[in-house]
């Protein structure tokens, strides 16, 4: 198997030994793992690198893991990519994100490993992966700078900590970091596809952000009215009832008819704090939730019907989607969508696809 997945619910050091035993015979070129915050991430990273010494080994802490068609927790889930899949892998860390996002050093490091400029890479063969500290608040700046400097598509997610919101970690080469992002660029022999799926339709109502505090991800006014009042008015409810509708009615920055979801987090005075930035003057559509499981199944089935078979999947799934699935007791149904496909992934504090988005699954499909 060119792609192998495994997961373990044991504690350290048994968890890594368990993973290694499940992957006996594999010679991975790249190992990507997603781990519950129950683990000592520094120790886990060290042990994972020691277990797969010839591979590029990267990972992050999570708010729940996805493993082989199951949604699990308190585990470590890994996907191993061998030389049939990965021709070469380059990796780098961007540190001190809260002090400003400077990617030049990391990109230079990637370029040295790839022996090519990131601006010159073939976007059909190379894919970028980004795992970022989910408490850094730096996702937008990082994705924007990467997007400015390369057309290689970066997908990934913000690390979690099982909804504690105390600290998240990313891991590379046997070390663990906070306030940092891990960048990987993989050259894939068979190519790849990316599925971005979110289960919403437009209500046809729009809100324009007329007063914002971008760094705080705060919108004070939509359409020159207090944000919570404008949002409530769009949904036809009193402002005091609006926060209860946040999960079902996020906002969408529309690219053609495809929403890049901005999820409201909480009311702040008469403003609304979101899980990602909204810029002054942005026009957003008020969205309405549809069936998450059916919509995701449709997206995966459509990809299965395409010409290239699926060798494996990494699913970067928003924690808000996972919370919805847990509330609806549909985690099993969701996991079953990926039955028969080597799959790993995690519940994120935000998803990466060209920018920083919410309530979405960004799914990397290895051909």
């Amino acid at each position, binding site marked *: 198997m060119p792609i192998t997945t495994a997961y373990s619910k044991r504690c350290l050091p048994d968890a890594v030994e368990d993973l290694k035993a499940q992957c006996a015979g594999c010679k991975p070129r790249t190992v990507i793992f997603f781990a519950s915050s129950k683990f000592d991430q520094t120790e886990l990273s060290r042990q994972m690198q020691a277990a797969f010494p010839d591979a590029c080994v990267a990972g992050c802490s999570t708010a729940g893991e996805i493993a082989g068609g199951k949604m699990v927790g308190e585990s470590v889930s890994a996907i191993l990519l061998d030389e049939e899949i990965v021709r070469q892998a380059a990796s780098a860390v961007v540190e001190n994100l809260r002090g400003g996002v400077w990617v030049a050093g990391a990109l230079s490091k990637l370029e040295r490993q790839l022996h090519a400029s990131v601006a010159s890479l073939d976007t059909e063969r190379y894919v970028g992966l980004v795992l970022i500290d989910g408490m850094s608040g730096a996702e937008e700046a990082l994705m*924007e700078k990467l*997007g400015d400097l390369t057309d290689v598509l970066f997908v990934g997610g913000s690390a979690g900590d099982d909804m504690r919101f105390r600290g998240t970690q990313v891991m590379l080469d046997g070390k663990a970091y906070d306030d940092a992002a891990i960048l990987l660029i993989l050259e894939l022999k068979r190519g790849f596809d990316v599925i971005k799926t979110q289960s919403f339709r437009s209500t046809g109502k729009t809100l324009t952000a007329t007063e914002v505090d971008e760094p705080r991800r705060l919108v004070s006014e939509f359409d020159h009215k207090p944000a919570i009042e404008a949002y409530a008015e769009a949904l036809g409810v009193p402002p005091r009832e609006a926060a209860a509708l946040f999960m079902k009615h996020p906002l969408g920055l529309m690219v053609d008819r495809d929403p*890049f979801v901005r999820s409201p987090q909480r009311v702040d005075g008469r403003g609304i704090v979101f899980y990602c930035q909204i810029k002054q*003057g942005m026009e957003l559509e008020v969205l309405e939730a549809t069936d998450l499981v059916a919509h995701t199944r449709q997206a995966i089935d459509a990809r299965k019907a395409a010409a290239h078979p699926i060798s494996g999947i990494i699913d970067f799934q928003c924690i808000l989607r996972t919370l919805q699935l847990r509330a609806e007791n549909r985690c099993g149904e969701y996991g079953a969508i990926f039955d028969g496909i080597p799959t790993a992934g995690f519940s994120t504090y935000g998803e990466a696809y060209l*920018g920083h988005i919410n309530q979405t699954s960004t799914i990397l499909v290895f051909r």
Partner: protein
Amino acid sequence: MAGMIKDMIDTITEKRSKGNPTIAMTTKTKFILKGVNPDRFDAGSADDPAVIAKVRAIGAEMGVSV
């Protein structure tokens, strides 16, 4: 005067994508995420100096001088 904003966006997109339609689409998405929706501008759009400055800055960020 009118139409300069669309011309600038088109130039940045062409130089960046070099005719690759997928990259042209992702470039459009990057414009929208940066707060400028290319679909809002056509040959008749007024040459708003603030928008022109913003598009020029986006071009510079993307490594394209316009």
